[in-house]
């Protein structure tokens, strides 16, 4: 299907589905939403518009490291996430900002609540920038970039889960 035929509602359904997989820690299913060349970025809070090749990020994973991250997170010795945090993702203000052949650029706001026993509630607030590809099997993620609004991670501590 050409990217031109994709509606915002279809993109929203896709992002809601992704959020549900991540909140349910169905990480292998989530990997299935990614292309073979996917990338996942969380820039440093003070440098949201920079490149991971010239600025220090919080997370800058190519597909190999995304897979390694998932493998790690499924291991009970990934201590920061064992037991897993509970997360609840609210995705809103979804917009298709660009269409180029089978590729869509999508912006969305997020509010990810994270809870852990013995830890304060943490709210990760910001926006996602996606590059989605329309494939015969449905939409796939080529790039997801999570830009935090917090000026520093501060009390959020680590980004030890998939944001």
């Amino acid at each position, binding site marked *: 299907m050409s990217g031109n035929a994709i509606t915002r509602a279809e993109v929203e359904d896709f992002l809601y589905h992704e959020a549900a997989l991540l909140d349910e820690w169905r990480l292998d299913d989530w990997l299935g939403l990614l292309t073979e060349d996917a990338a996942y970025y*969380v*820039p*440093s*809070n*003070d*440098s949201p518009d*920079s490149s*991971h*090749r*010239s*600025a*220090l*990020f*919080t*997370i*800058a994973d190519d597909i*190999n*490291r995304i897979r*390694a*991250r998932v*493998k*790690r997170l499924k*291991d009970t*010795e*990934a*201590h*920061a*996430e064992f037991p897993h945090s509970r997360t609840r993702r609210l995705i809103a203000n979804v917009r298709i900002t660009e269409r180029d052949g089978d590729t869509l650029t999508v912006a969305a706001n997020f509010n990810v609540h994270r809870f852990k026993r*013995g*830890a304060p509630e943490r709210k990760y607030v910001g926006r996602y920038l996606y590059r989605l590809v329309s494939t015969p099997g449905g939409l796939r993620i080529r790039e997801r970039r999570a830009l935090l609004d917090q000026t*520093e*991670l*501060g*009390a*959020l*501590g*680590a*980004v*030890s889960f998939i944001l």
Partner: protein
Amino acid sequence: MLSEKPFIIDDPEGMTFRLNRRTLADPGVFERELHAVFDRSWIYCGHESEIRKPGDFRTREVCGRPVIFARDSKGDIRVFLNACQHRAAQVCREPRGNTRRYNCFYHGWSYDRDGRLVGVPGEDSYPPGFDKADYALAEAPHADSYKGFWFISFDRHIQPLADYLAGAREYLDLVVDQSPSGTMEVIQGTQEYDIRANWKLLVENSFDDYHLLTTHRTWLDYMKDAGVQVEPPRGQGLLLPSRGIGKGLGNGHAVIDNINFRGRPVARWISIYGEEAKPEIEAIRAELVERLGEQRAARVADTNRNLVIFPNLVINDGSSVTIRTFWPVAVDRMKVTAWALGPAEESESARARRLDSFLTFYGPGGFATPDDVEALESVQAGLATWREAEWSVMSRGMNKAGEQLNTDEEHLRSFWRRWNQLMTAAA
């Protein structure tokens, strides 16, 4: 205070080193160390590369005070206290930039790049004798640098920085030698995150190799999966990561100094870097050998050094070069700030490799740091028992004469001895 037990029991003959846990949990100890330790030390403020031209500034909190780390009109580095001489409002509220004036928006006093008070609205209403020359911005009592690293001290009688750094200078030299021109620079992008734990736990953790195998097994698996050789070293008492030593460097500074196995951007290739990176790393290595000679080049490129500069600066010089400093905001909470440092003349591809290498282990999204944070917060939770379970044990290696291993604890003891010395001197 007679009833107080000692902070540490240091008995080399009895081969015992014990640490009283109130040092990590008692709010009274925390209040005392702000003055007895931090106000009696040189505290890392910033790197010269962060401000380059006259008028460039960075605002940050150092040693509990808001400061402006700045270049004055002549391009010299100054560290102003960020408080208006009128009523103490901050005169600069941006994180970074370049300015001709530091303006206090409250009543409008303004200061030039050299800290001189140059503007006072309605100056004629002050009584005779009011002289703007008396109201220049205050500065840190001492500000000095070693090879681009700037420190300040609020102790007017502190020893000179070069003397204070003592044996740590050798390890800063090894950092700076990685640049062909001796010019390192802080790379854009700051990691700032809190840890709900006492700051001294991060000192220990930053160069505690004893925990690597258990806390970071998933990271070691990642390295193995990526084809990196992670062989347990042979020999009695040797644990992963590799053969290394731990030692004090004087004045509470200490280091672990290990044979590299995890790769170095300057300059030791590992499989994670990819085949295409080999020629460039070989070229970086060749430049090192040509400039420094075979022996010094090997020293720079084949060992990893985790350095603690007392009290709260950590430079991890290994899979990347990190500058990490932290400030306690309570007995059980610290704010951590971390930067990446690299040679100024590094190529685009080498810089990208350095940053990628940083993230595999370090930082709040890395494969190891979040587990360290978890460990420290777990320790702090356990420390609520400090009145009942009073002592921690820190005696690894005390049965050995001479060199101590990186997985021993002599380097931790060196930090704690200095801390204890300052705290008991102030009592």
